[in-house]
């Protein structure tokens, strides 16, 4: 049975995959799905509770007295919460995915090099890992964003910086157990260069654990992005992201609970999907497995 077939048969992985696919479809089809313009401010329709209607203004109204339905209500400046939520999925998924790919590349590279060469390279990278782990990461992120400026790219880079250590550790451990195996020796014997041995023969065999770490670190990245935006140092406040929406709704918790609650649920749903998927992967790949 192929790997994918086994993955689909694994209940947590299947559930996670379905949840992720739903989010990806929502993110890709955002312009089609969103009932309204997520940036459109309607002062007359501020803080409307879910399921309420507002009068349509402007030239595109379908007639006098036409109304639109706000399924999840509106926020403090009258923007449609559902539309912002749908567009927000783009930001969260993009930032989480980009950060995950970047840190996987960097961390795996460090891990392969330190595991293969050992010696001084290993001591140096080990020290780097220790330094990174000793930083209070969130504070470092706030510090960096505050000192050097924010923006989407900066947030992605910083999230990548947060998680590369996980890859470096696991890849290093894998490489240590692989590098003395027969086929690696055979590759050396046939005259393959060190780079070829590293990237063609060793790295592909560490892919499985990398995927497991990747799913958990993507979950972590989505949560952290929301946290940073919540603190007001992450993405630009006008960006419709789940973190900024949570932050927007903070002051209206008593009068308009839906503004913060909806993005909170969206974050929980997505992170749960990613984590279930990772859990399923781990069960499949680790024969000792059910931890």
């Amino acid at each position: 049975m192929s790997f994918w077939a086994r993955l689909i048969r694994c209940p947590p992985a299947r559930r996670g995959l379905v949840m992720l696919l739903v989010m990806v479809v929502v993110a890709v089809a955002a312009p089609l799905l969103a009932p309204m313009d997520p940036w459109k401010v309607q002062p007359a329709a501020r803080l409307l509770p879910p399921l309420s209607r507002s009068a349509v203004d402007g030239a595109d109204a379908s007639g006098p007295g036409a109304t639109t339905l706000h399924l999840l209500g509106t926020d403090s400046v009258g923007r449609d919460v559902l539309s912002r939520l749908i567009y927000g999925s783009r930001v969260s998924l993009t930032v989480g995915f980009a950060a995950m790919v970047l840190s996987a590349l960097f961390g795996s590279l460090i891990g392969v090099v330190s595991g293969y060469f050992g010696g001084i390279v290993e001591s140096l990278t080990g020290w780097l890992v220790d330094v990174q782990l000793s930083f209070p990461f969130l504070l470092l992120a706030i510090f960096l964003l505050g000192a050097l400026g924010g923006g989407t790219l900066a947030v992605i880079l910083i999230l990548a910086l947060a998680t590369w250590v996980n890859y470096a550790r696991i890849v290093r451990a894998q490489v240590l157990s692989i590098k003395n195996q027969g086929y690696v020796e055979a590759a050396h014997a046939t005259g393959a260069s060190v780079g070829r041995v590293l990237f063609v023969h060793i790295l592909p065999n560490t892919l499985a654990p990398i995927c497991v770490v990747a799913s958990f670190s993507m979950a972590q990245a989505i949560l952290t992005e929301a946290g940073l935006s919540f603190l007001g140092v992450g993405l630009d406040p006008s960006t419709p992201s789940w973190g900024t929406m949570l932050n927007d709704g903070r002051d209206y918790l008593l009068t308009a609970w839906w503004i913060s609650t909806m993005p909170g649920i969206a974050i929980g749903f997505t992170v749960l999907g990613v984590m279930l998927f990772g859990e399923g992967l781990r069960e499949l790949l680790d024969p000792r497995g059910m931890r």
Partner: protein
Amino acid sequence: MLSFTLGKLIRALTVLLGVSFLTFIIGHSSGDPVRLIARGDATEEQRAQLRHSLGLDRPVLEQYRLYVGNALHGNLGVSYRQHVDVSRLIALRLPNSLELAGAAFVLAMGVGFVLGILCVIYRDSVLDNVIAGLSVLAQVVPGFWLGLVLVLLFAVHWRVFPVSGSGGLTHLILPAVTLALPTLGRMTRLVRGGMLEVLQSDYIRTARAKGLSERQVLLGHAAKNALLPLVTQAGLELGDLVGSAFIIETVFAWPGLGRMAVNAVQQRDFLVVQGCVLVIAAGFVLINLAVDLLYAVIDPRVRAQT
């Protein structure tokens, strides 16, 4: 054991040096503090004088050397905004942070252990599944959002606990629970997984065969070996708790280091941020050192390796 301890100690010191250097460089590249301190109508000459008196006209490496030298004597500089010693500001806030992180840590470890053991005793029952589900949920919900919801329910709606601030035990409960939940979820799963793995080993079968009660087998024999790897995890989690406390402190207006640091970043008061990072990082390094040494004490195999 002596060379082991010494090696770990040297490692911890070099890590601390690296952390302090990076922190210093970030703070240094964040802009000219003279622009913050000097009044708008200050002449170029006055600015230069100020720069000189702050030592900012010296080479970067020498500034760093001075900073570290002073830090070793407990002097982390003077806040540009509040004109108070950074070390005094930190000393004021640190106990609050430790209180919150400590409470969350004890809560997460204690309850996590109990729940994990319960899962093992009632394996594959409804209880096991419910606990497993909740422990996953605790890890995926963003803590700050959960904090807001808890405030809404317990402080505003039912008025059981105060909304924010610090004071007695009642102030501590909501933020501590919020902070502890993700760690609690992870610990529960780890205890459960570790115990189930150990329970399959031969010596457990022997223990059962010689007629020990299930309680003795679980708590006396299995728990000891199952919990060993968790010591490392517990150290990491403690660091994680201090690290994620920033957001929770902001939500609950808890007067800890995290909130001070976040405010200082917003005011561009970077010496304060630098000080906070350094103090917390030093704490991390100490925790890790303690974990490593503790590990060697409980598990003789670790000592033998070095």
